[in-house]
């Protein structure tokens, strides 16, 4: 029993925090470190997202995009001429076709790459 009492007392003594004269300075130092780290992280994430987006866009343009767009327009024309012979559903008629689709895909890809990079860096 006395042993248990002493152990409880010891736990209480350990739990009593000593007061140091520079407690406030210690906390301020850590806050500064946190702020610095946060700013650096935001810069890193932002720049990585921009770089990723630029690389993604340049890759798309480098992969013979005008030719692909022309091919896509041809395909779209062939598709729409085929579709005229069928009974399209209502929602299908509202879909964009041809070059518009390519530009939407490019935009979506850039946003997706930026998002993925941002997430990956945040996880790291």
């Amino acid at each position, binding site marked *: 029993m006395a*042993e248990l009492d002493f152990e409880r007392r010891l736990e209480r003594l350990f739990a009593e925090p000593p007061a140091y004269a520079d*407690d406030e300075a*210690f906390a301020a130092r850590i806050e500064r470190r946190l702020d610095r780290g946060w700013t650096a992280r935001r810069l890193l994430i932002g720049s990585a997202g921009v770089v990723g987006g630029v690389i993604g866009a340049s890759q798309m343009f480098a992969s013979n995009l005008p030719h692909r767009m022309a091919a896509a327009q041809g395909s779209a024309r062939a598709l729409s001429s085929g579709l005229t012979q069928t009974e399209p559903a209502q929602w299908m008629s509202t879909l964009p076709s041809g070059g518009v689709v390519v530009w939407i895909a490019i935009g979506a890809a850039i946003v997706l790459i930026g998002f993925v990079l941002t997430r990956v860096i945040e996880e790291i």
Partner: protein
Amino acid sequence: MPGARTSRFAQHHDLELCAQAVTGERAAFGELVRRHGSAVRGLMRRMGAEAAEADDVAQDAFLAAFERIAEFRGEGTFAAWVKRIAARLYLRRLQRERRLAPLVEAPEAAVAADAADRLIDLDDGLKALSPVERLCVSLCFGAGLSHGEAAEALNLPLGTVKSHVKRGLEKLRTRLAPVGRSALQGSRRDG
């Protein structure tokens, strides 16, 4: 504390501050550091770290705690959680710098004759223990580790840790001032 800056989070509970810190609110975390910084720094010194090293490890522990704040589920107190992080960081540092093994094998500190006769506070009492006894007692009673966790952290057999704790407690029991006379209570130490 006189002269201490009061933040807009001063009235918030620790758990509320943790919830805000999860969203990236650094000022809320700063309030947690203000509240529990001395407890973590004190534990490091009680484990045997010099003042500068104790502050370094405590700082690293708080930064690590901020990074992992989403993992804190509020099952214990925030202070206890950070103390455990700090204790493990300190042991890891000792191991990395190959200072742990010499500590474990070091003989008991020589206690000055007058100190052995008078009643002393916890910090002075801990100095009378051998380094490994001091580590074991501080880990179990200060950082809240179980004997098993302390054994794992120190890479020592469980029975050895239990023996060190038992011997450390015996020494402290004979030397600590009775309740109410502890010099630790309300004392102010230099940073």
